[in-house]
């Protein structure tokens, strides 16, 4: 993945400058675009592995850009948006974005997201072997025997909790919105399902955590959804 390019789409000159400078210092190769149409054409010609996309673009709606790129590319898309626009984030995530970054963000945050995205790319690349075992840090899911262990200890899960965990595991690193999860687990969502989802998720996390205190693989995104983080050291 050394030759992986990062496409930065940002119309604000100084934010673009900040991001590209950071990338340059950290030795990532990048290309920059300041409009949606430029982003689409650069994406087609350069095949970047990771796209940092600002949602508020002057020409095309950011959501449209995601949909267009997603139609042929499986590049990881991290959206950059202002806080307080949850509905935009949810729409972007449901349209195919993987993660989001909220303005104002720190350099550390940006780099952490990029590292997480790279780990996800590595995982996707290695997943092709159709391994019957999923391993993420101390968490191991044996799909064949449907056994979940954390640091060697077996964790007993209910059917729904297991399905939740496998759904998160198969999308590791990606933020899954509530409606996406509800749709996959229950098939069609009503309002009350969000509450039961929250109950199951709380219970699932408690069980994982009781097996190994301090384990925090599942991150909650208030008002948006859940995300399984890829552990730093596999």
């Amino acid at each position, binding site marked *: 993945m050394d030759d992986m390019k990062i496409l930065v789409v940002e119309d604000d000159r100084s934010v673009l400058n900040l991001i590209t400078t950071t990338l340059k210092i950290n030795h990532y190769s990048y290309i920059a675009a300041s409009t949606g149409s430029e982003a689409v054409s650069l994406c087609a010609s350069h095949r970047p592995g990771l796209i940092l996309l600002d949602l508020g673009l002057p020409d095309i709606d950011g959501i449209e850009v995601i949909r267009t790129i997603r139609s042929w590319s499986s590049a990881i898309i991290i959206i950059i948006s202002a*806080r307080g626009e949850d509905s935009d984030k949810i729409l972007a995530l449901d349209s195919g974005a993987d993660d989001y970054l909220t303005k104002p963000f720190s350099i550390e945050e940006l780099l952490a997201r990029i590292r997480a995205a790279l780990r996800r790319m590595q995982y996707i690349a290695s997943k092709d072997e159709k391994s019957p075992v999923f391993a993420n840090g101390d968490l191991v899911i044996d799909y064949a025997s449907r056994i979940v262990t954390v640091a060697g200890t077996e964790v007993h899960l*209910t059917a729904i909790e297991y399905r939740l965990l496998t759904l998160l595991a198969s999308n590791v690193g990606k933020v899954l919105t509530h409606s996406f999860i509800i749709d996959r687990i229950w098939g069609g969502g009503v309002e009350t399902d969000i509450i*039961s989802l929250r109950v199951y998720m709380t219970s699932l996390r408690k069980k994982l955590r009781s097996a190994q205190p301090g384990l925090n693989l599942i991150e909650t995104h*208030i008002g948006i959804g859940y995300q399984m983080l890829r552990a730093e050291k596999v």
Partner: protein
Amino acid sequence: MLHSPIRRNIEETGGKSSYASRPSVMVCLSPSPTTKRVIRAAARMAFPVPLSSPSSAASASPAAGTAPIALYVGSTGREAEENSLLRENIQYARDYGFEVHTIQSTDIPLAIAEYARREKVTDLFLGYSPPSFTLLPKPAINEKLLSALPTVDIHIVPDPVSSSYPKDMRQIRPGSPNWNLRDLLLVLAVMAVATFLSCWFYISRFSNSNIITIYILGVLIASVMTSSRVYGTFAAILYVLLFNFLFIEPRFTLLVYDSAYMMTYLVTMVAALITGTVAVRMKNIARVSAENAYQAKVLLDTSNQLESAEDSEDIIRTTCIQLVHLLNRAVVFYPPAAALGHDKGDSGHPSARDFAAVSPWDPDAPAFPPENRDSPDDSNDSNHLDHSDHSKASCGPVFFPAGEKTLSPELLGKELGAVRWTFKNSQTAGAFTSQFKDCTCRYLSVYSGETRYGVIGIDMEGHPLTEFQDTILLSIIHECTMALENERMAQEKQTAEIRAENERLRAGLLRSISHDLRTPLTSIYGYACSLRSYEDDLPREDRDKIYEDIMEDADWLNAQFENILSMTRLESGIGIRRTIENMEDVIEQSLRHASSHHNRPIVFDTQGSEDQIFFAEMEPKLIMQVMINLLNNAVKYTPPGAEIRVHMERSEDQIIVEVADKGPGISDEDKPYVFDLFYNGKKSLTDSYRSMGIGLNLCAQIIHAHGGSIEVLDNEPTGALFRFRLPAADLDSAEMQPADLDSM
């Protein structure tokens, strides 16, 4: 025209200028046929527009409050019931748009003068009263009025037909025979007792004068106890006949030997008549004052009840119930939406609600929205939105049955036209009025100036109200209107006060924000400039200090921006969506946002069993804002290295969250003001740019909006402890217990 007003031109300076420039007209009513001409003449003056018929006059009537007055002064207050011509004249005046007032007084000119003065009348219309040939020659009313009202133009309309009333008119003057069996029997009984006593006197050989006295006493008693003067007269005649027949020689004949007795008869008869008349008058006065007292009591009662009424619904309910008590007739109230027939389309008659069956006055139901007269009547105007808002609760008429008597909605459905007309024109319509005569109800508009509150319908049950009931009815509705108006004004005033207070707060907030945002911006800008110019000249530690300050200022700006955003959202309610959230998740996410404040470790612990769930209904972004503010506050006051403790526990139906710092704490005298807007522990706002005290105020606002509470306490051994409580969400449905589901 035949009338020739006598106009007294006023020379006195200021005589007329003190009155309104518009002529204020009053017309005096009487049972005379001339009255109609007087009314027409007065109407020409009161309504400058040419009028052709009473109905057009009614529709062109001036705004409420300036309506000309038609005054009837009666001595008993019952004349209108007894005299059809007077009733006709009163109705005639009403049709012309006059406001009819009836007062009772024995001194007619004085009463007229008093009334005219009180109502600031500028033009008074009278019919010419010819010198009457009654027993007591009255001085001409107009003469008295002229001297009593020197500043009023008095117009006298003469009677063109004759100076006296036609014969048939005189027949129905007050006091016409109105025989009634009970009174007749009473007279006979009283006279029989008197005769019996007289016989005993006669046998006991008392003088005749005693017998006469007994008889006069009988006549007096008969006059007092019967309803009309006729019976007194009848008793007097009876006395003469009986006395003559029984006790005067030759007895048992009607002949008199001694012609002196003729004189006695005449004198005693006159005496009997006069005492009888006086008795009747006294009785009338007693009745009038009783009625007045009753009216005053009812009105006082009504206004007392109206005073304690809480809102417009209460006012209308009180009024209607009072009317039901007073008239013993069923009453219906149409709020504006119903009066305009907004729900007419679905069933043809309004969706009726029976007051007795279902109480529509539940506290949640919105008040009847007053309808403004300025707006067009059609439903597609801007007011339509208001109607649809309220249509659920108050679209239908409200019924107030009188005992068993109720109004059927089907029947009323047919009379919606009258209701509508009444509402739109703010006039009276329905039974026994000139408009919609064939209705079963009379409809009265409840309005004040430009604002219309609705229509009250009264079941007339086929016979009209007495003049007394009419007067009191109008008075009660007037009281009701006043109460509604006061209520509306009070509400408007309150709204204005709240708005002014909000404006004041907003202005203060803006001033504070602009000050507090500019200060860190200035420092960031200044640092950037100095770094560009002198970066190489600055020692390492100075530069580090500058970088830190810039970051801190930017953080501060961002935090305040988030606060302003949250405050705006909280105020406007836009984008606020409450969901049931896990408080633990919310706190953890807040910690991630606040954890950039290094060197001060934040410890988060929860108290409770493993499967304890901390769920609460909330707008998570706002609660996060509370946590972030409390944490930032704690970080600000905690020395580097010291730890900040976040603790959560559940007590019964509440989730308690505490944020404790190791700072200097908050003094007891400052504690009550910590959550006040712009309070920063010091009196002056300009001490430091960190003065923007909206953070804690916002916390309190958010927590209160969630039905929780927030307080500040002392942390042990040092520092402040902020504790807030939120109502815990109740999750007791079966699907909420994952443990019960099939285990793997």
